[in-house]
């Protein structure tokens, strides 16, 4: 590696580190993303002079960049904000796939008996990259609702996954020791793809973001391993940075849900326990529902209203209607704040992004720790399309799959208005006692329509 390239890679690595640093503070986040992109361009440009291109090589690189660039740019531009999570999963998956393919190409080049120091990272990259690719595609399919979003489980699932993992380990050893390359690494790839699918199938609902984050860290590690194969420092450093920060981020995310990572991955959320929870739920309890006029009056003559937005608000694109209602109430002297649960929406921070899009002032967005003590002073908790994040069973039902997750104390408000499409359970697939609370009134309908109705009702009040 010549000096110019080494220095360029060093500059790129510094850009990535500074970019990550800034991405983790609200002030410089956008700047950080830009710095990281600059680092990427530097690394790419510096690599080119080193290479000897064949004619075919030049052509496929050009075609690949044009197609990939178009797909990436158009996909990222067109995607709706509510569909961001699956988009991240998709972009992560293709990165994992690319890492695996790079390792395959290198293994082929090494010939029959590669040195251990070259074979080991290649095989690692093939396995992890393939798991990440397949797992991300399943995550994408689940979130895009191409398949059911609920966990898919069957008896003996953990054993099957264990056998898959053991088979992969066996093949890894075979590839490293025996090294009859062509067939063993193909089988290895197929097994890893199957494991990726099997690994994500039993995970669903609110846990998807955690899995995507984990797979993101996996791809980082696969890229780092490919870096060892190619003896490329840029790949090693950038891949490892992502692997390490992605692992920490995964832990922070599961912490925010009050659960351990192992529980997220192997707990089969919302499925194994759902039966118990549903059985425990008292059927036939009645709920109160109210008209838009009643609720409008209630809101208009309140002093403090806390809006609890959830995924239903995001799906209905109701963030603008929510802001309109809030502004109207504020004009009447009502104090309005938004209570943002850490995992509201489909990804941590997702709700902030959506409300920011609707120009909701920052000062009105309160995080859970900040607002939980305020609920008892609130006249109305207006729950818009949220469910699990206000479900009291997280506090008092040890058998519930969300038991232990910190929730918003919406139940302490003097009145609770629960806006929902139907009585259907939320993401976690469990019943919510808060809907049956004596202080609660239900207001059924699409979040956007309902909010618009409330706006006119408040105007009339």
């Amino acid at each position, binding site marked *: 590696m010549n000096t110019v390239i080494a220095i360029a890679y060093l500059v790129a690595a510094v850009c990535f580190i500074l*970019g*990550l640093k800034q*991405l*983790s503070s*609200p002030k410089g986040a*956008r700047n950080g993303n830009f710095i*990281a*992109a600059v680092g*990427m361009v530097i*690394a790419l440009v510096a*690599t080119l002079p080193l*290479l000897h291109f*064949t004619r*075919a090589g030049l052509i*496929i*690189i050009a075609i*690949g960049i044009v*197609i*990939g660039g178009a*797909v*990436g740019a158009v996909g*990222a*531009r067109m995607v709706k*904000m509510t569909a961001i999570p699956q988009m991240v999963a998709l*972009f*992560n998956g*293709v*990165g994992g796939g*690319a*890492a695996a*393919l*790079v390792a395959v*190409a290198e293994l*082929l080049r090494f010939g029959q008996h590669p040195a251990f120091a070259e074979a080991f990272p290649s095989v690692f990259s093939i396995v992890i990259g393939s798991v990440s690719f397949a797992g991300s595609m399943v995550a994408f399919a689940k979130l895009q609702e191409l398949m059911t979003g609920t966990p898919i489980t069957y008896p003996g699932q953990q054993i099957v996954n264990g056998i898959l993992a053991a088979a992969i380990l066996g093949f890894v050893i075979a590839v490293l020791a025996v090294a009859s390359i062509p067939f063993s690494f193909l089988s290895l790839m197929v097994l890893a793809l199957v494991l990726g699918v099997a690994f994500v199938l039993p995970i669903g609902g609110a846990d998807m*973001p955690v899995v995507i984050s984990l797979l993101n860290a996996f*791809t*980082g590690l696969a890229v780092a391993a*490919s870096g060892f194969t190619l*003896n*490329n420092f840029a790949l*090693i450093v950038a*891949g*490892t*940075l*992502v692997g*390490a*920060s992605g692992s920490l*981020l995964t832990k*922070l995310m599961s912490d*925010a849900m009050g659960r351990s990572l192992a529980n997220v991955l192997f707990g089969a959320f919302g499925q194994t326990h759902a039966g118990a929870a549903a059985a425990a739920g008292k059927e036939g309890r009645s709920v109160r529902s109210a008209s838009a006029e009643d609720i409008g009056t209630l809101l208009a003559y309140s002093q403090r209203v806390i809006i609890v937005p959830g995924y239903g608000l995001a799906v209905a694109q109701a963030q603008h209607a929510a802001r309109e209602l809030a502004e109207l109430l504020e004009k009447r002297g009502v104090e309005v704040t938004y209570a943002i649960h850490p995992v509201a929406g489909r*990804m*941590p921070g997702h709700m*902030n*992004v959506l409300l*920011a*899009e609707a120009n909701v*002032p*920052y000062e009105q*967005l309160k*995080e859970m720790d900040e607002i939980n003590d305020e609920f008892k002073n609130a006249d109305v908790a207006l729950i818009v399309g949220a469910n699990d994040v206000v479900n009291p069973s997280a506090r008092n039902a040890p058998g519930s799959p969300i038991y232990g997750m910190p929730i918003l104390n919406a139940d302490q408000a003097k009145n609770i208005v629960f806006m929902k499409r139907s009585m259907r359970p939320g993401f976690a697939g469990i019943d919510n006692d808060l809907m049956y609370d004596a202080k609660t009134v239900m207001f059924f309908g699409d979040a956007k329509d309902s909010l618009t109705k409330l706006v006119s009702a408040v105007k009339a009040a």
Partner: protein
Amino acid sequence: MSNELLNEVTFFVLSIFVGIEVISKVPTILHTPLMSGTNAIHGIILVGAIVIAAGASSPVTIILGLVAVTLATTNVVGGFVVTDRMLEMFKGRAGRAQGAQQNQSPKPAAPVTPTK
């Protein structure tokens, strides 16, 4: 262990610590953009994809190279653009909140208190 491998392992280990340290204080509000941003950074595999594609001559390596470059470019471009779109919204709002003097004055204080 060769000298080069030793260097690589050194970079690897140090990068682990830097990676953990550098994002240790991220507020919840930025979890999604940060995940998306790190997702874009592992698009660096495009460098690797170009390296293997450059020397492609046999049908197998040509197909491998083409697919790898395409996937990796999608990762890089899509990753950075989608992250920027997310963050654009935060910034757009901060700008308006500042009104006319948004250029001179610093941005409003952190919108949320960082967790921990």
